[in-house]
């Protein structure tokens, strides 16, 4: 049996809608957040969880971390049902929400960490050793005496990570951890998650809209749409299906004539550069190159793959999300 076993998970929210006219009664609408979701995760996996807003990603995370109770279906994490054995379960997991803090706003972060030691009933020595380890890895040492509210967003995320890992959880959930972070902080976050996963074998499950996060971190990716699983596998496999177009930028020396190019291409000019976007389905790259060489003397040329975000957008569109 896998470390995490999710079977036919369903969750429906009843949303009360206001009627147009003032009325005592309100219309109720049932929103199916999860419609029979099933998957397994092995111990030590680093898994990315993507999907458009409202697909049910956060709902899944909240059920798996014992915050929400599903309507039906089963979840077993290391033999525990999160919502039924909540207090025993959450001792073994860490949760980070990218959009809100779990630490105390006005006090130095070291005070927050001390309080977490008390909340999780950690032995002083173990807590201290782990704190040193984490502050080293996250380069938090110089910030421990600073109140959370004075930290930058990147520093705050580091503090959140530290706080959620002090009790050495086997499983870490991250809900949009990279939201709003600058490039340096994003890189630091990725490096740290890889380190934690490698060094301690922590299972990590993260939701994100940042495909770079997925590409850099997650060997396995799961796509959710309208509460159902649409894809589960390697990111490269997912992308190969949607990686269908290229952009070539050419600079000619001297005169050139593009009349010989196949019809229906998206051609634009930027200064000396000619930019051509084409679909691999209708035009193989070698054919285009051959035509370009006939069009004039090429001085410089680059071929760019499709932007990963565009691919995902194409995918969402195709899956009608």
């Amino acid at each position, binding site marked *: 049996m896998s470390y995490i076993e999710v079977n036919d998970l369903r969750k429906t*929210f009843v949303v009360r809608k206001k009627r147009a006219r003032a009325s005592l009664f309100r219309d109720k609408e049932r929103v199916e957040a999860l419609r029979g979701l099933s998957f397994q995760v092995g111990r030590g996996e680093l898994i990315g969880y993507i999907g458009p807003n409202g697909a049910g*990603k*956060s709902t899944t995370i*909240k059920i798996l*971390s*014992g*915050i*929400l*109770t599903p309507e039906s279906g089963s979840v077993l994490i290391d033999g525990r049902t999160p*919502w039924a054995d*909540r*207090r*025993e379960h*959450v*001792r073994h*997991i860490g*949760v980070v*929400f990218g*959009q*809100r803090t*779990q630490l*105390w706003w*006005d*006090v130095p972060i070291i*005070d927050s960490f*001390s*309080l977490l*030691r*008390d*909340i*999780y*009933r950690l032995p002083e020595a173990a807590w201290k050793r782990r704190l040193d380890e984490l502050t080293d890895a996250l380069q938090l040492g110089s910030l421990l005496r600073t109140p959370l509210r004075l930290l930058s967003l990147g520093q705050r995320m580091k503090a959140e990570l530290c706080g959620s890992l002090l009790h050495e959880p086997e499983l870490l959930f991250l*809900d*949009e951890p990279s939201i709003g972070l600058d490039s340096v902080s994003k890189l630091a976050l990725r490096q740290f998650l890889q380190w934690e996963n490698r060094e301690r074998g922590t299972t990590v499950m993260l939701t994100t809209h940042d495909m770079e996060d997925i590409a850099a971190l997650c060997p396995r990716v799961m796509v959710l749409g309208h509460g159902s699983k649409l894809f589960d596998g390697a990111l490269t496999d997912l992308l190969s299906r949607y990686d269908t177009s290229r952009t070539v930028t050419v600079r000619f020396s001297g005169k050139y004539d593009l009349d010989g190019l196949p019809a229906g291409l998206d051609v634009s000019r930027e200064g000396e550069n000619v930019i051509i976007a084409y679909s691999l389905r209708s035009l193989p790259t070698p054919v285009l190159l051959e035509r370009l060489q006939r069009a004039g003397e090429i001085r410089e040329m680059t071929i760019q793959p499709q932007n990963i975000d565009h691919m995902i957008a194409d995918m969402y569109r195709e899956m009608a999300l």
Partner: protein
Amino acid sequence: MNTVKLYIRSMGMLLKCQMQYPASFLMQTLAQLIMEGGEMLALVLIIDRFGHLGSWQPGDLYFFFGMMSVTFYLTECFGRGVTGTFPSLVRSGQLDTMLARPRAVLTQVLCSDIDPRRIVCIAVGVTALCIGSRLSAVRWTFAKALLLCEAVAMGVVLILGLFLIEAIFCIYSVKSVELVNALTYGGRSACAYPVNIYPRPLRTLFTVIAPFALTLQLPAAYILDKPLFSWPAWTAFLSPLSGAAAFGVIYALFQKALRHYRSTGS
């Protein structure tokens, strides 16, 4: 690390936070003093005008008032997480965080806030108790002192429970808490006076539904050596336990409500 220690440490941290703004703290404390002082002034004026309410003499009335003030504001001071902050915990998603930690939610809610400004209200209550005790020439015994402590403790538990009803409404995202306010704040105002001065429906409300009469007033009457109801004297020692009973029922409902918690968007 036990729960009490965690609570004390949390309170220490919260106090440290609040004391970062001393001027604001002093002003707000002063405002509290004026407010609760005003309540007591109303009592002083009533006593000055009427002298007594039924069989209750001025000292008795001060004593009842003091019992309620001390109990209610102890709750608001140390139970602020339940009496004041809970809706914002739900709205801000902090309840999610609490559910993701290996402690009872109620423990964490209680650890999330404290209102030290209420100290002055408690002081006013203690003053009223002393005045009442002096005017009514209470003959203190060890049993009476013990009963006073029991009554106040059970009163605190009862008031916490009543505010928990609001928390339950809040989890089910029901906005109308006025009904519950009738029990909490209404109970505080009404039961600062002995309930037997009220007509039967109100008396029943505060004896059976929100049993302030049982937790606070029966013991107060015993200490004053006057009957509130025509019940045997020993009932005064048992009746405060109704506060714990009410709390138990409401707490079970609260736990059930958490199962229906829907969280907020990410």
